[in-house]
Structures are given as structure tokens and as C-alpha cells.
């Protein structure tokens, strides 16, 4: 249940950027290759947001699809489940370009 630690970090980042304003929405990007369970993160977020400027804010999670470039044929393709495989030639030697993100993208803040 590391989603609790992740949620705690999300709340800290959001609170720091809010400068005392109330936050209505927090947008996070989660790469497809991370092992973050959205429902667990949403639940943890609500819990740790209590008593902070983030309390009551909506958590919007956007999943970033995994994309890799094949070291054999050079083609960029979307990666599905493991084993990660090039969509063009079927090769396994890939450099992952996207899908490992875990970041707070933006906040919606109440204007005073």
C-alpha cells in the first residue's frame, strides 16, 4: 500500500504550490508501467488531504501509455503488457520513452 506514501507526497507538493489558496483539483500523471492502483491512490488521497489546503479537492489521474523505441528497427511503438515488445518487428530490446511518469501536473486553485 505504497499509494499512501505517494498520496502524502502529492498532498505536500500541492499544498506547497497553493500558497494558502484552496485547491479544488489536483491532476496527476501516472505512467502505465508504474504499479499504482488508482482506487487505492484516490482513497489514500482523501485520507491524507484532511486538514490540509487540499481537503475536498478532486484527484484527477491520467494514465500515460507506455511508448518505447526499438533498438533493432528504430521504430517507436506503444507497448502493452509484459514482455514489452516492439510493435513493428517484435523485438524485445527497447528503450522505454514514456510510461514511467509519476508527477503532479497541475492544480486548480480557488481565486480570491
Amino acid at each position, binding site marked *: *500500500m*505504497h499509494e*499512501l*506514501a*505517494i498520496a*502524502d*507526497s*502529492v498532498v*505536500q*507538493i*500541492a499544498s506547497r*504550490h*497553493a500558497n494558502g489558496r*484552496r485547491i*479544488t*483539483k489536483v491532476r*496527476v500523471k501516472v505512467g502505465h*508501467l*508504474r*504499479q499504482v492502483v488508482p482506487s487505492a491512490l484516490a482513497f489514500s488521497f482523501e485520507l*491524507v488531504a484532511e486538514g490540509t489546503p487540499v481537503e475536498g479537492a478532486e484527484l484527477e489521474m491520467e494514465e500515460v501509455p507506455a511508448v518505447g523505441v526499438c533498438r533493432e528497427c528504430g521504430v517507436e511503438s506503444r507497448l502493452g*503488457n*509484459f*514482455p514489452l515488445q516492439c510493435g513493428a518487428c517484435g523485438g*524485445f*530490446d527497447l528503450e522505454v520513452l514514456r510510461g514511467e511518469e*509519476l*508527477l*503532479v*501536473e*497541475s*492544480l*486548480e*486553485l*480557488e*481565486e480570491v
Partner: protein
Amino acid sequence: MHRTAVKVVLEGVLDANDALARANRERFDQAGTYVINLMSSPGAGKTALLERTLERLRGNLRLGVLEGDVQTTLDADRLARFHIPLVQVNTDPGFGGECHLDANMVRSGLSELSLRDIDILVIENVGNLVCPAEFKVGEDARVMVYSVTEGEEKPLKYPLMFRSADLVLVNKVDLLEHLDFDMEQFLGNLEAVNPGVSRILTSARTGQGVEEWCSWLERRLPAQRLA
């Protein structure tokens, strides 16, 4: 109805942890200590393998251990007889008992250890196949212990940890004759998520593979340290 404004943040959720991990790593590098993050499910045999390792290594290289557990000092108690630099970090002061070590918890344990007296520090993470993989602690290498009683399919189900491992110790191989475990299938699954990863078949019970694992450890050190 309040109006809202959007503020772009673009900050990595684990940036704060990663910064602390880098600070830990600087301390390790300054002291000349090589650091291993040892991870597995609960009960895969991390501590038992460390016991065999310490029996075999004594005198050759100076091993230190940072034990991470949610509660108790049971693991540290088991290793106390080796009289090595040893510290137990309990994660339960965290939010209900963290399921992993993070860089800050490791940092808090370091004050108890004299890194200059340690060639290799093994950080025995909390037994858990998911969470520890997300948190860097400042390690040079990640080593996973995986026991054959856990089945062949786990690399596909929990790819994050298997992907991040530099070495997998496939433990409890003395039990193979009693199990339906298909080693070839397991190694195929491991290869699928982490192509080319090193692996050693071990048994903490019989000592199989411990020699090879100790050689792997010794090769982590700069040559002059082994003279």
C-alpha cells in the same frame, strides 16, 4: 461560486525522496561503501541468506546491515551474533507502518552506522513485492531474493521490482523436488520483464549458490580493497 485558476506544477511525486536518496548516495560514496538494496516478498529468505553470507564472508570483506521491518527487531537479533555493524529501522512510526523503506528512513538509520568500517552495506528492505521498488534509498545495486515456493508467474504480475533488479537470487531450490515449480518457465518470465538480468540459484538451507553470491559481492569492490 468561486472562480478557479489553473497552476502548472510538473513536479515528480517522488522527487523529494529521490533527492534524499542522492544525498544518501553521496555519503556512501564518500565513505567508499557499496550499497545493496535487498528486496523480496515476506519469507523469501533474505535474512537466512544473509546469515549464510556472513558465515562465509567473515574476514574477507566487511559487511554491514541495515534491517528494515514494520515492527520488531527479530531479524537484527538473528544477525547480532556476527558482531557486524548493524542497525534496525522500524517503519511503524510512519503512517500505520510503512510497507517499504524510503530514503529518509534509511538516512535516519545511518547515524547508528560507521560507514568507514563497512565495505558493503546491505539494506534489507521490508518484505513486500510491490512497494519497495518505487523508492530509491541511495543504493548502487538492487538484489532480489525470490523463492521457488512463490510460483512461476510473479515476474509478470509484479514487474516493477523484477525490472529494477540487477541480480535475482532464486532461493529455496532445495525444495524443488517437492514442488511443481517450472524453473524454465520462471526464468522465461523473468527474462521477459528484465532481459539479461543476472541470477543465481541458491538455498540458504543447504548453502547451494552462496559461494557464487559471495563472489558476486566481492566483485562489487574495487580491486585494491580485496588485497
